[in-house]
């Protein structure tokens, strides 16, 4: 949920920005969005299988996670010209790196596990094993490669939501926020011909989310008419 908060905040602040600057809130056309659906469904499927009593070995979970992250990297690369996607790719890369170096799952130290759930008995998990049905593996700091990128950060106590997150998660959240925030700003490029009429807009930010062409908006050449 904490990651989705970045999307909600980005959307709200982007729309407020658009209203304040008197620009229409725009959207963009993503390249190959099906890749994201494939990566998500593969992970979702692996985690949901256990609900039906089907045990998936940790190796297969790790393989699915890593493959999914690689697919997401390809998607981010294809959309790299859109704002925020460099950060989305970088955050994915950070998480992928620490997972790859630690057997395909995201490491979490015993200290973080205890801080996260002080009531959990030490017998409920053991070092080197996957934590329940999660993406995490319990690993001591000294055993973890690139431990600075692992799930070692916890939200402050005054927040009711107790979660651990990684540096990659922070970068991902900033990327998502930036993308949605930027849609409330002015288009990057407007070329004007000698008559002073705007004729092209090569920015991927091109369509008013209302589907209309308000002040400052130009017709989308990819679409017939609105």
């Amino acid at each position, binding site marked *: 949920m904490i990651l989705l908060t970045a999307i909600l905040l980005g959307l709200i602040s982007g729309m407020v920005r658009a209203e304040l600057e008197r620009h229409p809130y725009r959207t963009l056309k993503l390249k190959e969005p099906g890749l994201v*659906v494939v990566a998500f469904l593969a992970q979702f499927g692996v985690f949901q299988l256990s609900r039906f009593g089907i045990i998936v070995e940790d190796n297969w979970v790790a393989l699915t996670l890593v493959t999914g992250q690689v697919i997401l990297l390809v998607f981010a690369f294809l959309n790299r010209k859109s704002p925020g996607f460099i950060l*989305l790719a970088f955050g994915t890369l950070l998480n992928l790196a620490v997972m790859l170096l630690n057997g395909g799952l995201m490491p979490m130290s015993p200290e973080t596990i205890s801080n996260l759930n002080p009531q959990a008995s030490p017998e409920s998990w053991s070092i080197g094993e996957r934590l329940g049905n*999660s993406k995490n593996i319990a690993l001591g700091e000294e055993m973890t490669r690139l431990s600075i990128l692992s799930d070692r950060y916890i939200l402050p106590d005054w927040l009711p939501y107790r979660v651990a997150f990684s540096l990659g998660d922070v970068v991902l959240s900033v990327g998502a926020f930036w993308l949605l925030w930027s849609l409330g700003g002015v288009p990057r490029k407007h070329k004007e011909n000698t008559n002073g009429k705007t004729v092209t807009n090569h920015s991927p930010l091109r369509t008013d989310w209302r589907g209309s062409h308000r002040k400052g908006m130009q017709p989308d050449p990819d679409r017939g008419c609105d």
Partner: protein
Amino acid sequence: MNTFNRVKSDFARFVVSGKARLVMLVIVLALFILAAGAPGASGGVGD
């Protein structure tokens, strides 16, 4: 039948509008961040 046609044309208008593209963008971004966000404990897919 008229109601069905009206719903169908309303839906078609929505699909080609900017609203549909924004909804799709937010959905794809949410799926991306849930799948790329590392761990179950931080609200990822496996949470």
